[in-house]
């Protein structure tokens, strides 16, 4: 942190406060045990977030000294909610009524979902400490609100520093997909004992490329100043590059465009932020990661890909099957093909009326009423080992789908869940 331009512009009085907050946060985050295979949220992450802010500053975002100080302090404390003792929280809040209070995944979920709000606890508990450092009550309040804004908070309902610095912090946090947050040595040594979700996250970080100004962070000045982040990945197999690029881009794009961070940054600093996937800068390396990728994508179980635009409605149908198979979902044909290229799908269960993801036109898909049938044909050609079942609620003519050779089954919704389970088990046995 101390080598950054951001740090260098902070005045001496503020530096002493920042150093104390930084050291305290690093110690707390680095030395408090929490969940075994969370990606690192300690000093490394803080350094990366500050470094990402620094990149944006070097690219043209101009901060005042006050802004730099509050933003850097907030970056230090933004994840402290991860290590706040939960003894004061009701078990109902934590376990949401589930009858297994010993189940750590519920606590993990609570912390993942609400750690930004738990910042309040830190500020309350350490209020005296912060005051002694020289922060006023209103400073503490601003710090708390900026840190809280690093996720979920509706930025348009916040004001002043909280709004613009919260936006910048949220982006810098989301951009930290650096390999340093998930050391390769730990991943390689321990992936077998990791759950598939942790394995997926660690691999995601491992195959991502660090941000470097002039390399994959490009600044353009004409007509308006634009900072373009070019995502590049290096997974063990070439065929999975598009999948990983999509997975990495999605959360950053969500923060930028859906949550209004891009708008806030443009409003405050007149700088446009863009995120793009770069196939050209991506490559496949590290054959030793193949089994890890396999586990991350399939949990080393038989893999079912459900392609349905109303996937949430389908989740309960697969509840029983989840115990035996690894089940992933796609809502359109493009996403499904990316997943098929990345993972060895054993059974693709396709709905007929799905979006194509802009890869096919209305005329190619009978006005999108038979996108699923076109997808089935593609899977049959490109992935002959993948079995295909159709499960559709369509009331349109299904002759084209029925005429497909090689379908494992063609079922219409609604179907009795037990009959459906038997059908799937039979196909995969």
């Amino acid at each position, binding site marked *: 942190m101390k080598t950054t331009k951001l740090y260098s512009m902070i005045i001496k009085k503020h530096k002493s406060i920042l150093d104390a907050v930084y050291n305290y946060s690093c110690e707390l985050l680095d030395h408090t045990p929490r969940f075994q295979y969370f990606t690192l949220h300690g000093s490394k992450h803080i350094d990366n977030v500050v470094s990402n802010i620094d990149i944006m500053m070097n690219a043209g975002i101009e901060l005042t000294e006050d802004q730099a100080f509050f933003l850097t302090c907030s970056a230090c404390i933004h994840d402290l909610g991860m290590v706040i003792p939960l003894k004061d929280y009701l078990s109902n809040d934590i376990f*949401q*009524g*589930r*009858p297994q209070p010993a189940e750590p995944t519920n606590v993990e979920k609570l912390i993942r979902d609400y750690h930004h709000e738990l910042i309040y606890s830190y500020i309350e508990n350490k209020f005296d400490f912060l005051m002694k450092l020289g922060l006023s009550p209103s400073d503490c309040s601003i710090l708390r609100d900026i840190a809280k804004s690093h996720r979920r908070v*509706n930025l348009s309902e916040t004001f002043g520093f909280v709004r613009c610095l919260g936006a910048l912090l949220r982006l810098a946090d989301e951009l930290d997909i650096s390999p340093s947050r998930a050391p390769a040595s730990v991943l390689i040594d321990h992936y077998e004992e990791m759950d598939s979700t942790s394995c997926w996250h660690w691999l995601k970080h491992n195959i991502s490329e660090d941000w470097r100004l002039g390399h994959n962070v490009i600044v353009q000045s004409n007509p308006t100043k634009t900072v373009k982040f070019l995502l590049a990945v290096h997974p063990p197999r070439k065929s999975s590059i598009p999948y990983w690029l999509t997975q990495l881009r999605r959360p950053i794009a*969500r923060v930028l*465009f*859906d*949550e209004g961070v891009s*708008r806030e940054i443009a409003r405050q600093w007149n700088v446009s932020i863009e995120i793009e996937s770069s196939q050209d800068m991506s490559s496949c390396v590290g054959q030793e990661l193949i089994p890890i990728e396999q586990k991350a994508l399939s949990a080393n179980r038989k893999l079912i890909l459900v392609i349905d*635009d*109303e*996937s*949430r*409605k*389908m989740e*309960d*149908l697969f*509840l*029983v099957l989840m115990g035996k198979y690894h089940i992933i979902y796609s809502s359109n044909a493009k996403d499904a093909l990316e997943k098929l290229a990345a993972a060895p799908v054993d059974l693709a269960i396709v709905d007929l*009326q*799905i*979006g*194509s993801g*802009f890869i096919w036109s*209305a005329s190619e898909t009978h*006005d*999108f*009423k038979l*996108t699923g049938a076109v997808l089935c044909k593609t899977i049959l050609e490109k992935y002959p080992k993948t079995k295909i079942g159709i499960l559709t*609620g*369509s*009331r*349109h003519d299904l002759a084209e789908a029925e005429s497909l050779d090689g379908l494992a089954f063609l079922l*219409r*919704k*609604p*179907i*009795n*869940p*037990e009959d459906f389970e038997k059908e799937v088990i039979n196909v995969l046995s």
Partner: protein
Amino acid sequence: MFCHENALKPSITDPISVDPFIRYVLNDFLLENELQAGILCEWNEDRCGIDYVVIEGFPESPFIGSRQESLKHFIVQCLECYPAPHLHSAMRSDLWSEIAAVHDLSSWQSKTAFLPVSSSTRNYVLILFSESTISMKEQLYCSCSEVVETISQLRDMHSIKHKLRVMELYVREIGHDIASSVQAIISKLNAVSRGYITGRLANEKIKEAEEEIMSTYRIADTLGITVDPDYNIGNGKEFDAREVIARTVSLCKSEAEERHIDLRTGRSTAPIFVWGDEKAIQSALTQYVINAIKYGKGSSYINIYARKKDKQVEFIVQDIGEPIEDIDKAAMWEFGWRGDRAKEYHVNGSGIGLFTVKKIVQAHGGICEAYSDEENKHIVTFSFSIPEKDIIRKMQLL
């Protein structure tokens, strides 16, 4: 009515080239007038290349490809030079050469005439081929009006057929939606009854199943309004708009959660009373919210609120999504209209939702609006305003 202004303004229509009836009419017309051949072109510049021609005396295949474009371009130019109605004199060698470029006409008599014809909403160009075109001028004028009349009748038939097609599509889509909902309901109940989900979570699942049933009921309820040609306010009464919003949010919550969309309400703490068919207004508002969920950006938010404005109550649904194109603004309220983006973003639809909203709102003496924010085009607002008081009933009494 036939007027040259219309003839020069292409309108959007479906292709009619495969319609056997119009083919029959034209053939009859040609025989009656001892013409060798005719081409009836349905005109639509916006969809150039999709619509094509009814051909008599030519091979079955329509004019397609660049050569057709050249012919079309030529005829448009002619129409600009000689506004309709105009019977062009024979021996237009340049027209003939364009036609000849499309088809080998070496065995044909090279005498031609063409004239634009138009009905109230469609424009056609009738190209005739004859050995004695000049002497037939008067007859052609007369017969042409017959063709226009026939075309007008055909248009009405076409419109009815179109409506029936859309309605069939709608019913099929409802079948699809209900099948999906029933699947979700029985899967939830099955998981509970087999003991895979227990305790509080089981109660949540049962509640979700109940909501899904209500959602299915809403679909069927809306169908009633859509298909009833005499729909008007049946159960008018004063109600609080905030309660309608709250129920709408409750109904749409699970669909919003599926796309990680936050439904935001609560701008007014005071009641907002308005007169109308509460159930229908809720149905209209729900349609807006469902559309916003379907076509808005995932992981974003939707603002839903009502406000009083000039003795009207305005219901507003605002989301982050694709900007509304000017070209779509008028068309989107029409029966069966579906934009290309709509088809891609959400394939299960029939283009009836907004039509039904408009029908409900108009029955209340109100208006519907849709627009993108001027600063940020991605902020999309759909609203409708209805009179605060019971002016409709008062008007009926008067």
